């Protein structure tokens, strides 16, 4: 076993003298004796091959050197979306995130000494409910994709013996992949609803045809993955309700100042990601914060995954407070009968969302949505004037699919061409025959007219080359 002489390190509390005293009190000669129960043959006797930097300065320098090999969305103009959004984090928000009373705490298992976390999470749940027009929201899932997986499982729990889940083909492929994974073990059958190739909207007739007495839930995204607003779904929702099918919608949380809230058009469970409304910056796709909200129903609430903060009473008359509630659904108590295995969630990202929305207020929230809407529509109009087409001719918010038809063998060249213009061109989407790529374009509120004009000019140059 290793016998190291002591070294002092900023992350280790005891000094050599402390250690001597503690060993003496335990009546042992070395720390090794505390490992004496470990069989000799499984002890690791080598030295781990790991880097070590002598000082904080050198660690910083090393990591910064690596990060400097990246180009960020502050270096280049980004037209990338697909579920996450390039946002601005106000200085006040970041300052609150640095409060280590928040970020170095854990799940508030002792509510009396954790009111800060609980109160803030209750406000997060409340703001999510306001935005989605729902009654209850949990205090976060990992991301939109896992919210979808958990929502599908929940529809099966609510509807008992039903084992089929419908979802539209215009679901983001990364979320679809997670949905498939989450439903594979429990044998929930997934059935895809096609979309209209002209409008990009759900094929509502087909959706209704696919509903039967075995269908637990139906899922669609609004706007869908291609940016199209699903505005013809009244009949689908009506049919689902008649058949006792749970309606689940995935929404862009940053769009709901302009687009109707899911709670106002019959959706039972609304999911999405809180990243676009302040859970955090892009962070290369994580951490994010999965939104999970629904209409209030006592029985359904007991089937929800994740943690819930609720109001409670204290011994002091008139002083109500906050606590984690319905913990008996959770894994640490219910074990194999829990509604989900989730333990750690994305609490700080949820709190971050509350800070962000409190700073934005209703005006800021709306202005951001309008900026994105104006940017995307200006871009689309100008591109059409320049002779480019969109794939689907439907109403949209901040995202549309541009019919660029970049030949598959030219894709890398196109990427490079656009990078030379300091542009991330969008998400390439392969055509059905795999011969061409179209581009899914999203405009954040950080883009200005010049960025859009540069984008159009670059595409023209590409086309003419």
């Amino acid at each position, binding site marked *: *076993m*290793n016998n190291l002489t002591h070294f002092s390190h*900023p*992350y*280790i509390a005891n000094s050599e003298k402390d250690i001597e005293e*503690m060993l003496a009190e335990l009546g042992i000669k070395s720390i090794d004796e505390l*490992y004496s129960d*470990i*069989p000799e043959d*499984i002890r*690791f006797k080598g030295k781990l091959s790991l*880097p070590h930097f002598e000082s904080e300065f050198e660690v910083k320098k090393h990591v910064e050197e*690596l990060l400097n*090999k*990246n180009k960020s969305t502050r270096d280049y103009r*980004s037209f990338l979306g697909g*579920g996450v959004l390039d946002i601005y984090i106000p200085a*006040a928000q970041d300052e*609150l995130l640095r409060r280590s009373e*928040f970020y170095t705490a854990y*799940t508030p298992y*002792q509510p*009396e*000494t954790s*009111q*800060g976390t609980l109160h803030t999470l209750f406000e997060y749940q409340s703001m999510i409910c306001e935005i989605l027009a729902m009654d209850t929201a949990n205090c976060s899932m*990992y991301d939109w994709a896992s919210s979808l997986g958990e929502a599908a499982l929940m529809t099966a729990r609510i509807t008992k013996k039903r084992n089929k889940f419908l979802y539209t083909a215009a679901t983001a492929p990364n979320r679809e992949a*997670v949905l498939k*994974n989450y439903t594979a*073990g429990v044998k929930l059958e997934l059935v895809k609803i096609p979309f209209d190739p002209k409008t990009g909207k759900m094929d509502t007739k087909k959706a209704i045809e696919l509903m039967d007495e075995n269908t637990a839930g139906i899922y669609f995204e609004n706007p869908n993955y291609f940016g199209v607003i699903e505005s013809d779904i*009244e009949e689908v929702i009506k049919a689902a309700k008649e058949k006792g099918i749970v309606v689940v919608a995935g929404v862009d949380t940053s769009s709901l100042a*302009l687009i*109707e809230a899911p709670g*106002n*058009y019959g959706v039972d469970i609304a999911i999405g990601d809180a990243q676009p409304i302040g859970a955090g*910056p*892009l*962070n*290369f796709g*994580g*951490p*994010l914060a999965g939104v999970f909200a629904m209409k209030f129903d006592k029985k359904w609430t007991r089937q929800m995954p994740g943690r819930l903060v609720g*109001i409670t009473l204290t011994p002091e008359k*008139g002083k109500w407070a906050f*606590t984690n509630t*319905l913990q008996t659904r959770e*894994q*640490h108590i219910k074990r194999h009968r*829990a509604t*989900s295995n989730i*333990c*750690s969630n994305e*609490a*700080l*990202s949820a709190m971050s969302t509350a800070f962000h*929305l409190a700073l934005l*207020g209703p005006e*800021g929230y709306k202005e951001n949505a309008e*900026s994105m809407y104006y940017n995307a529509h200006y871009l689309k109009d100008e591109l059409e004037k320049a002779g480019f087409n969109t794939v689907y001719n439907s109403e949209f918010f901040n995202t549309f699919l541009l019919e660029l038809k970049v030949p598959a063998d030219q894709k890398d060249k196109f990427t490079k061409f656009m990078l030379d213009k300091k542009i*991330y061109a969008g998400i390439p989407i392969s055509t059905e025959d795999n011969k061409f790529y179209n581009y899914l374009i999203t405009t954040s509120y950080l883009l200005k007219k010049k960025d859009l004009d540069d984008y159009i000019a670059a595409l023209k140059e590409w086309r003419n080359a």
Partner: protein
Amino acid sequence: MYKQARFEEPLIFELGKKGRRAHLPPKTDVPPREITIPKNMRRKEPPELPEMHEGEVFRHYLRLSQMNYSVDTGIYPLGSCTMKYNPKINEALARNEKMMYLHPYQPEETIQGILEILYKLQKYLSEMAALPYGTIQPAAGAQGEYVGLNLIRAYHHDHGDFDRTEIITPDSSHGTNPASSVMNGFSVLEIKSNSDGQVDLEALKAAVSEKTAGFMITNPNTLGIFESQITEIAKIIHDAGGLLYYDGANFNAIAGKIRPGEMGFDVLHFNLHKSFSTPHGGGGPGAAAELCSERLAPYLPVPVVEYDEDKGRYYLNYDLPKSIGKVHGYYGNVAVALRAYAYICSLGPEGLLHTSEQAVLNANYIMRKLEKIDGLVLKYNRELPRKHECVLDATPLKHDIGVGAMDIAKMLISRGVHAPTVLFPLIVHEALMVEPTENENKESLDNYAKIITEEIEKAKKDPNYAFNAPYNTSIGRVDDAWATRNLILSWKMIKQLKTENKWPPEWPEEEH
């Protein structure tokens, strides 16, 4: 005397006034235009959000932060949670613009730095695990377990073995273990621990069969006891055709001392927010790394980060035909992984070894003090040294004066220290699960033991003192049953109660 801050802070919705603003977002200079969203999909009622000025928002949340206990406030020895210090350099690095503002779908040539970090982090963790392949896609420990079980299922199915439907786990295991198994469609066989607090080999032999898909265990286990028969356990499981899953929640005890792959494990997860110092964030985000042997590698979630030597470039490899697919929308909690990377760089191999040794020394040191307290006992073989945590049982105290583990927890938080994990593991009835971590020094441990001793003495003089605790915290003891009965979960529900004249809530008559 300790006194936690208490502000009479209203809900943010009750603050502010129409027309106040706390932030001016960047507006586009593209001219406004008519919004042509179809009428049925146009929002009619705007959402109710607070209208305040910046200073008010800040003051509200700053006050809330002061009503919160944290690792940076004081000792936080939650067993199984490894509440170690979160180094500030890691926070600073995570705020680098070339970390924060990277879109997950940027072209590969613009993300070489972050891919290199992810690639190397996985290699370093592989080195500690002695399991060569992996991913950091799972967003938390429970999702790590879920992925590991996914891999086990995929492996059996790929080998035509569709009848392996059972996961075996000891009754001391984390609640996530059985819950993750069920989410994967497995049934769970829980086996009893023996008098040493370890897996009962005879019970294990009786439990394995041609249905055994795998076995999940943490080692050291949740009692802080090292499962010294792990090699025999591995043999029993492997002989039965099952695979071994290592729940890495307790890895802080053994980093650099023992490598799970060399104990016979096929797959594991590490909690980066436990063993590798990333913040717990009031409940998350955490992150997990999944590491596995060669035979499970083909099933890993996509994409995996790889290095192309010919091109000298890191890339995301989606070409794993047998992959289980995805469990996260993108690549996991990357900004958390960056912090863990910096932590490993800061400590190096020797520092990590010291970290484990100090965590273990601290746990044993405090255990020997706590077991002397009249009313607490150390269940299971008290001769055995514990590893990074220890579990005391307050059943004697409960039996004598009715004061249990939860009451002790409430007395402790009255004194400005955090409580241990209580009432877990379930096999110790009045469990106090103490994990000090290497972040506490001798004085801090002495003080913690002294506080527990004093508080239990007070309880013995007057049990009501314990039942009415906590004192000096922002609020007194909450009524969990009321919260469950009434389920008030949002401002929207409060508004509804107001219209029914049911808010604020009425206090029940004294019921004694």
